[in-house]
């Protein structure tokens, strides 16, 4: 599988990152098999979080067995110094490892949170101490929030080495600053910060729960994923072709093999084909009357 430099970290990440939330829906034996399966494809970057049910615990055994082959990303939703330290200790314990390669501020959403994490008593102070003590190697940030906020974070956090954010043809086809994750990608590239793409496989929202109760959803994703093999491939190719360092799989284990196959076969996507994907998403999602043309 193709690898790309993850910013200035010195690590070359595979173009697909394993989102280990998928392990949460499997028993331990199935989780072990899935990790082996992902490693068989050469994937070398894993991402997990304490909020993903018991994914940390289920990742543990195979992570420890293959520790040298895996660049491990983890994250915390804590914003304070104390909270971040507490969650880091907990994750290290649950994963059963000495060190996390990339520790990320998880799901930044508001300006106040950015102020908080960058303050003296903020999470990043804890991150930096942990880095000095050799418990983490690199600092990252994740957000599905406003692109402007991520741009601010890139400007304000000097030692930020990766950012994780949504990128797919649906948002790429929309104008307006609130969808401008391309600007985040461009700024991160300028600063040589690694870029990790989420929601690449999002097809749309689930129907309202009175139409489709949560228990009847066929996939364990926060959004309705695309599911046909050629759509999965197209979405992967699109995300990888935008220039992200690495694309994270949809969270449902049923989709993982298709995504691994797409990642293993990735061979670029030309610009006319990228626009074709954007254009289709735009029409599928359009409030404008039906049109004869593009």
């Amino acid at each position: 599988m193709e690898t790309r430099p993850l910013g200035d970290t010195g690590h070359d990440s595979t173009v697909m990152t394993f989102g280990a939330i998928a392990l949460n829906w499997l028993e331990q034996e199935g989780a072990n098999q899935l990790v082996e399966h992902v490693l068989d494809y050469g994937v070398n970057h894993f991402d997990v979080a304490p909020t993903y049910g018991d994914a940390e615990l289920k990742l543990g055994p195979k992570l420890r067995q293959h520790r040298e082959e895996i660049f491990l990303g983890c994250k915390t939703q804590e914003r304070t110094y104390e909270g971040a330290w507490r969650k880091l200790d907990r994750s290290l314990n649950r994963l059963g490892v000495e060190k996390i390669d990339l520790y990320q501020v998880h799901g930044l959403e508001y300006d106040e949170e950015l102020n908080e994490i960058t303050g003296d008593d903020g999470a990043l102070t804890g991150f930096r101490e942990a880095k000095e003590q050799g418990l983490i190697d690199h600092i990252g940030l994740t957000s599905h929030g406003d692109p402007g906020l991520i741009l601010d974070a890139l400007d304000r956090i000097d030692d930020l080495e990766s950012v994780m954010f949504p990128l797919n043809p649906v948002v790429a086809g929309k104008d307006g600053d609130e969808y401008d994750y391309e600007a985040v990608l461009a700024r991160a590239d300028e600063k040589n910060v690694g870029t990790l793409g989420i929601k690449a496989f999002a097809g749309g929202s689930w129907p309202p729960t009175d139409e489709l109760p949560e228990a009847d959803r066929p996939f364990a994703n926060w959004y309705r994923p695309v599911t046909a093999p050629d759509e999965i491939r197209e979405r992967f190719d699109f995300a990888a072709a935008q220039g992200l360092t690495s694309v994270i799989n949809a969270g449902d284990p049923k989709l993982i093999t298709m995504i691994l196959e797409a990642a293993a076969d990735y061979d670029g996507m030309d610009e006319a084909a990228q626009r074709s994907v954007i254009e289709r998403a735009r029409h599928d999602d359009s409030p404008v009357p039906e049109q004869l043309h593009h």
Partner: protein
Amino acid sequence: MDVPDTVATALGDRPVTGRRCLEAGAGMGNATAGLLANGAARVYAVTNDPDHARTTRRRVADSGVADSGGDGSDGDGSDRGNDADRLAVLKADLRSIPLPDGSVDLITAHGLCNVLDPAALSTVAEELSRVAAPGAHLVVDDYDPLPDGTAIGELFAVENAASELARCRPALTFYPAAFLRRFFAGHGWEFERERTLLEPVPWTESHVSAHADEAASMAAECPGEAGDTLSATARRLATEIESESVGRMYSLAFRRPG
């Protein structure tokens, strides 16, 4: 109002800021959106379809196109304030454009030529050349003919058959890029560049259903049983096809000698 990537790509290397622009055949006003967003001083959106005129007007009025006009300078100093103020939607036939000679600096024909049969195309090209100022730019975005044996091609064939029977002219003519390039050169336009906008072209469920509706409404004008058959075939194809990605959409850019 989002500017489609096709339009953004076609206009990307054209000077729009501060220019007087004409969208020939406004459709849903997609090129108009791009021209306003790129800082056009004025946009004339010409269409003979009252629904299209209304849609274009409403889309611009509702949204307020984001103005990201180039370097932020005002070009010729004209008013670049409110989008609606910079837009004039003209309900008119492109074979007789209600604008004076030499009055526009940039013309877009985005997805226009395929709805013009050769006779109409010929007259429209003369009109576009007439209203263009010396040194004006022309952008022609359209589709290459589809390869043989496509499902969407079958639907277009039904649409064309119904149109021929009802109105004695085809609904759709897909001119190859090389054809339009030489054709506009023959009208005195200097060719500047060609780009591929979409390949493959995603004919989505929404396009398929719009074309099926178009075919059915023309079939309703056809005399006798042929109309019923064509209408039924269009409906059947719409259900069978759903969507298909095939063919190429291109962008040609020309310049009027200064």
